[in-house]
């Protein structure tokens, strides 16, 4: 018997937990007494939940049979989670400042913060010019060429 990989066990348990939560939500989040049996707004979501449950069982069965993934899969490390959280923080910060301060103010500031502090870019030319040029180019494309609306910022509008 080949050495067991815990990948399929973890995947199977994760899929099972997700499918059970999904099926639970189907009954609490969707009105059920509409339409004929097998043809209600719940039908497809419920069926999908069952499919997912079945797939979870298959993964656990694969684990018991000693199946291993074709290519090695590294676990997610603490450091990686921390770094992803920092990146996502910048994403969210950009979205948040975009809402309050608008595109023209938030974009150069956030891109400067990202290049300087997150990506450790040392060249001042890139840190200063790159955010300004990118902001100007996107503004030109969306506002001048495409007549789209970019966020003006709640605070800026109030002022």
């Amino acid at each position: 018997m080949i050495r067991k990989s815990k990948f399929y066990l973890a995947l199977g348990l994760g899929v099972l937990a997700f499918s059970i939560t999904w099926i639970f939500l189907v009954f609490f989040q969707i009105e059920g007494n509409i339409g004929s049996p097998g043809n209600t707004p719940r039908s497809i979501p419920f069926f999908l939940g069952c499919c997912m449950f079945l797939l979870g069982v298959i993964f656990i069965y694969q684990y018991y049979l000693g199946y291993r993934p074709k290519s090695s899969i590294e676990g997610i490390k603490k450091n990686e989670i921390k770094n992803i959280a920092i990146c996502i923080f910048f994403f969210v910060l950009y979205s948040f400042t975009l809402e309050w301060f608008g595109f023209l103010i938030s974009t150069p500031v956030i891109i400067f913060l990202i290049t300087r502090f997150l990506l450790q870019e040392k060249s001042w030319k890139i840190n200063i010019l790159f955010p300004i040029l990118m902001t100007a180019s996107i503004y030109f494309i969306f506002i001048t060429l495409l007549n789209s609306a970019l966020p003006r910022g709640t605070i800026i509008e109030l002022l």
Partner: protein
Amino acid sequence: MIENLIAAFHMTATLEVFFAVCLGSFAGIIFGAIPGLTYSMALALMLPFTFTMEPATGISLLLATYIGGMTGGSISAILIGIPGTPSAAATVADGYALAKKGEASIALGAAVIVSTIGGLISLIIMILLVDFISKFAIKFGPAEIFMLVLFGFSTICGLAERSLFRGLVAGVLGLMLMTIGIDELEGVQRFTFGNVQMLQGVNLLVAMIGLFAVPHILEVFLQRINKEDKVNFDVGEVKTTLPGFQFIKKYFNLVLRCTGLGTSIGAIPGSGGPIAAFLAYSHAKNSEKDPKEKDTFGKGNIAGVVAPEAANNAVTGGAMVPLLSLGIPGDPATAIILGGLLIHGIVPGPMLFIENAPAVYSIYFAIVAAYIVVFIFQVNFIKYIVKILKVQPHHLACAILIMVVVGSYVIRNSFLDIYIMILMGLFGYFLNRIKIPITPVVLGLVLGEAIESNYRTAMSLSSGEISIFFSSIVSVLFFLLIILTIALQVKKRILEIRKQKNQFDKGAA
């Protein structure tokens, strides 16, 4: 027919369409040429640009991006030995060997000319097939369409590059995401948790932007933070040398065969460019009768560039067949193009020729224009295009970050969409990490509505009798094909496991 052709020509013969084709071709070549960036990502980023455009302009932009991306993949494959797109992987062996011998310009020239010939021939095949299949498919009822879409979906999940079951998990996840929001048939809220903004559900375009672009941005940022960022590539002075008539005459037969192969494979949902390119490469090698010539494959044989490049560009025509005639996208790129068509009120499927024939013909004109522009760009501007390879990946990632955030916002002028895009991106990143393919998630989102609406319409017509799905030969045939697709994949996996087990037992002994 002639009236529709004239109307389509008027729609596409405008300055706006010309600029859109140039922009799309350029963006496609760049995203195709840079390893790590994909033309699917370029298409997802281009989608928000098409919102305010005329339908012909917007669709031309997307098609040119698709074609440019498919062709551009060969640039880095030949010059630096790293395929810009998975479809160009088969070109690396001989293309890079030629570059090392100092014949990069000949390889680039051969790649661009056979890409154009292959793409244009596949367009002709596509025109004939789309018309034929549409006329046949127009007779389909909801039960047949349900089975057909389910078949398309099963092939996509089954042929997902890693494993059938992980492909199915991804596909089911995509279908689940599609059910969030208002149920269109009964008007019932599903998984909205009482939030008014959730009534609209997960926007397909926002999800695609998040799934395709954000994982790449995160990967590049993490590599930079961990000081593992890839070096940029400086390939020096490069030019494209077009081969002469004798070259085309010598390889025309091979190009024709590989184009046929690429178009057929492209028409099968879920297969796509890499499979076509590798099969064409293998065909070129096996069909070589001269043993000495055969030995040069992998060491700089120009046929090893001609065959995969003709085939992977022919895939573009093939992939458009199920998209236009049946409304089934075969890969992420055509799924995004489908999104673009829907934005402009063009609903692909059997009725498209009846309802919007000029739109179909304008697509054909746009594809021809895109191939011509991509050809001109690759021949004349290659030395400028390769300069982009020098740009640091994290600078490109910053530019993409702005585009994804702004692009997600302009779709519905909604800040919630930006947050959903970030969530989808994070979700895509973790799926990548545990080797669950993203393509079936996107196709689940795209095909989900067709699957559910046709299932429920068929059930309503039959008063809840499930036998409606087995009442015609067509639907039974598609059902058998679904079973066959899954069974073949399961058999393949079992054989792989047995092989793995035997190898381990031998090692242990």
